[in-house]
């Protein structure tokens, strides 16, 4: 019997593919976000709003990840945006390898922003890098303010937290202050925007954030 010291990161093979994806994106100065959140948090509605607000200024592409169906891709395509649907067939997250073939369907040089909508799930999407510039997490107030405590990794890995459906706050027992406090306890750098895709409240701040970061990458700075 031989004992071998190994020290290998189990997720390294995915991380390697994610780094290759990041190189592909960096070569054409394309800003990429990995949009994560529960089923029904409003990810596709957020995409629709963001596209309507920014498509005059930015060339946007979308990859939709779902276990089944092309419902989301159809919704986004209606806005005249190039959209590729990935059906994971049961897998609970997208990984670096899964998005690679979808990249061939885009002319990446002609895009400023690529948004990858991950499978609706607060668990494993946090753990699998895609090669994105930023992880953006969407949480809706109807899900409750205990989510940072229940799904800490997701909040730790995200650069931005959008708290959606704030128009429903009078009807639910959820405190945006509690969400903010607990999210920052897990991740001091996280940027938090309370929003409503229904009333457009707070969305200007989000689109300003997005424009700034896309601009910085395109400007090479």
């Amino acid at each position: 019997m031989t004992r071998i010291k190994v020290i290998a990161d189990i997720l390294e093979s995915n991380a390697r593919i994610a780094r290759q994806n990041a190189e592909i994106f960096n070569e054409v100065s394309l800003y990429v976000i990995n949009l994560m959140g529960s089923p029904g948090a409003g990810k596709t509605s957020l995409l629709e709003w963001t596209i309507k607000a920014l498509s005059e200024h930015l060339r946007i592409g979308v990859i939709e990840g779902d276990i089944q169906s092309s419902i989301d891709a159809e919704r986004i395509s209606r806005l005249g945006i190039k959209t590729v649907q990935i059906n994971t067939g049961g897998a609970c997250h997208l990984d670096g390898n899964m998005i690679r073939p979808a990249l061939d369907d885009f002319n990446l040089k002609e895009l400023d922003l690529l948004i990858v909508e991950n499978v609706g799930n607060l668990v494993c999407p946090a753990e699998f890098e895609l090669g994105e510039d930023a992880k953006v997490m969407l949480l809706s107030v109807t899900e409750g303010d205990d989510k940072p405590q229940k799904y800490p990794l997701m909040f730790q890995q995200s650069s931005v937290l959008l708290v959606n459906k704030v128009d429903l706050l009078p009807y639910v027992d959820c405190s945006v202050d509690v969400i903010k406090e607990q999210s920052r306890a897990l991740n001091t750098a996280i940027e938090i925007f309370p929003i409503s895709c229904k009333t457009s409240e707070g969305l200007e701040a989000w689109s300003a954030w997005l424009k700034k970061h896309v601009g910085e990458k395109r400007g090479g700075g």
Partner: protein
Amino acid sequence: MAILSFKMHELAMAQAILDEAQQQVEAHRAHKVLVIRLQVGELSTAMPEALTFSFEVISKDTCAQDAKLDITRVPWRIRCSSCHKEYRVHDRLALCPECNSAGGETISGKELMITEMEVE
């Protein structure tokens, strides 16, 4: 097979463990993997039971089919952002036991590592 479709992230992790085990067997001219020691942080989304089950399924008929996964959970530890005290988090994020501040930098608990293997 229901577990497999709902726990696909453990299946992907199990595949990566098997790949590493097969490479090590080849590199050390061994023929069989006996034990694979893993560190899985408490923050990791990998569930040890699902990881073990996934590994059993995919390692069948390979050099690692009888290998035991020896999984050590690594506690979630935080360095307080105010007083820099390091403390363990039990169950959920609480206030710093020293200065009562909320949160800080996670210094362990995200591990998902192979640390050692026994082969023959």
